[in-house]
């Protein structure tokens, strides 16, 4: 099987603090991989190492066949990235934001215009081309940010908490798009706090205090193996096993320390 992402014993230390502790996983092409964990668990650090903007302390990894240590620029050319901050230029219009990223990824005019049309349609931004990004509401902004991340037709899409702070309807529309992209063969790595979103992923992994916990598998398999009623239940069990503390919900985990 071909893998979009393969990481092996990836570790990141900041001084003495271990943010990510020897994580390994493989994500097959065309799958939606849900990366779960409370705030500060090491999700974003892992993602940044994968995107080539943070150098691992130790360990190796390849993204779309390119080594993240030796070839970070190739990695960057081949992935689309979107963060929860929706890194848009507020003072540029919808179209100008797309044009800018098209230029950054070296698209020619013809490809750019075609691609722009597709993405504006995908994000239902028709008629808003000349609207400044700052005047868009949360859901539109989110889909424009996704459009910018997809402008160069990457085969891998990395989404860092893309639905944080977005209303439920926009969240649903967003996930419909994500699933559509996956059927086109795009691999998606997405981090989330929402269990309903996690359950709709093809496979999930759970990170806690920098460690990968349990198996990486389809949500239904994980639930079945753990004899639990849902994903949240599974993770609460995991964490309680490790810490020996009673946890009432996934949301509470962020307050736990080792």
């Amino acid at each position, binding site marked *: 099987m071909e893998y979009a992402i393969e990481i092996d014993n990836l570790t990141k230390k900041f001084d003495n603090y271990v943010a990510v502790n020897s994580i390994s996983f493989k994500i097959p092409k065309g799958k939606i991989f849900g990366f779960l964990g409370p705030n500060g668990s090491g999700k974003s650090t892992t993602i*940044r190492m994968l*995107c*080539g*903007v*943070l*150098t691992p302390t130790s360990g190796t990894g390849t993204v779309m066949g390119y080594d993240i240590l030796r070839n970070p*620029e190739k990695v*960057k*050319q081949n*992935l689309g*990235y979107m*963060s929860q*901050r929706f*890194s*848009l*230029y*507020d*003072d*540029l219009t919808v179209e*100008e934001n797309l*044009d*800018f*990223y*098209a*230029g*950054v*990824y*070296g698209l020619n005019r013809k490809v750019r215009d075609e691609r722009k049309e597709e993405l504006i349609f995908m994000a239902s931004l028709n008629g808003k081309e000349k609207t*400044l990004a700052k005047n868009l509401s949360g859901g539109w902004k989110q889909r424009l940010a996704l459009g*910018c991340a997809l402008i160069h037709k990457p085969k891998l899409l990395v989404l860092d908490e893309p639905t944080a702070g977005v209303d439920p309807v926009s969240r649903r529309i967003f996930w419909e798009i994500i699933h559509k992209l996956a059927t086109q063969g795009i691999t998606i790595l997405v981090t989330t706090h929402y269990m309903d979103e996690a359950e709709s992923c093809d496979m999930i992994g759970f990170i806690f205090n920098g460690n990968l916990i349990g198996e990486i598998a389809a949500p239904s398999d994980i639930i079945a193996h753990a004899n639990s009623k849902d994903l949240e239940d599974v993770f609460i069990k995991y964490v309680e096993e490790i810490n020996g503390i009673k946890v009432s919900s996934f949301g509470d985990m962020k307050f736990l320390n080792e």
Partner: protein
Amino acid sequence: MGFNLQRFFAIVKKEFIQMRRDPIALRLPIAMPIMMMLLFGYAVNTEVDDIRTAIFDQSRTQESREYIDKFEASNYFEVTDYVLSDKEMANLIDKGKIKAGLVIPANYAEDISKGKTPETLLVIDGTDPTTARTAMSSGVLVNEIYSTEFKKKMLKEKGLSFLDMPGVKINTKVFYNPNLESNKFTIPGLVGIILQNITIMLTAFALVREKERGTIEQLMVSPIRPVELILGKLIPYIFIGYAGFLFALAICIFWFGIWPVGSIPLLLVLGFLFVVCSLAIGMLISTFANNQMQAMMFIILVILPSILLSGYIFPREAMPTAINWVGYAIPVTYFLNIIRGIVSKGVGLEYIWQDVVALMIFGVVILTIAVLRFRKSLD
């Protein structure tokens, strides 16, 4: 590591659009040089005249009146008060109402008529040495001239001529600025200083804004190269900065009437070089600062020494060697030599080429450091 023109132009275009959408960012660099030139052009004046002076005339005679008139006629002294006691005069100096006082003794006219030399007293407030020095030297000068004239008159009455006596007469010739107008020195310098301050500020916020908005993260995961980003961001500001330079220069020429003696095209070319150099300093600050607050502090860190140590206000010849050397590390030092050289002295490239080379080296080195410092990683 190639340089991709398309990515570079994407940045340039984006910066131009953002600049256009921000009316303040667009107008300030034009409005500021005009405002500052007009304001500081008058403020930065080392010539002291109309020193407020009080007179304590105890003689109250035709002769003492004549003496006082000579002081007033010199234009250095402006008689604002007549006092009736030393105490009253001291009081006015304490309050800061006057900077000098002239005391004429009661026996002034009497002494003259008896052929004695009367002694007057010029009291000076030494708080501000510049004013005090002017008051002292012009006071002495006025007195000298008056007493010489006086002696001539006396000699003539006795049938002798002053011209029969031998002596030495010194002739002076002042180059470049014969009337020693301080404007001709300070205003061109002001163009350089104002230009530097504005341009540094323009670029100092360039990357900081991206850091604050989080868009820098998106750029880091893109294939864009630091050199494309830094230069791409620089280009639009060159236009704005250069427009600021033209406005400042126009005010120097048309408002203050200081027409460059030397080549204007040369000045325009070297002004461009200096704009780029200053923008590079701002860009470097932008790579260090994580937010606008930090950027502001770095700007002050750069601007203050450049005003005080570049020779703009205080002559660098008067500084201790170590401090003088610090001045060499400040690009505006070289530009001041250039602009003063061209505007006041009218010299050509052959006299200022060393300053030009220094500015070029500064520009290239600073930009290189900025590019190297902006690594595309968050480590």
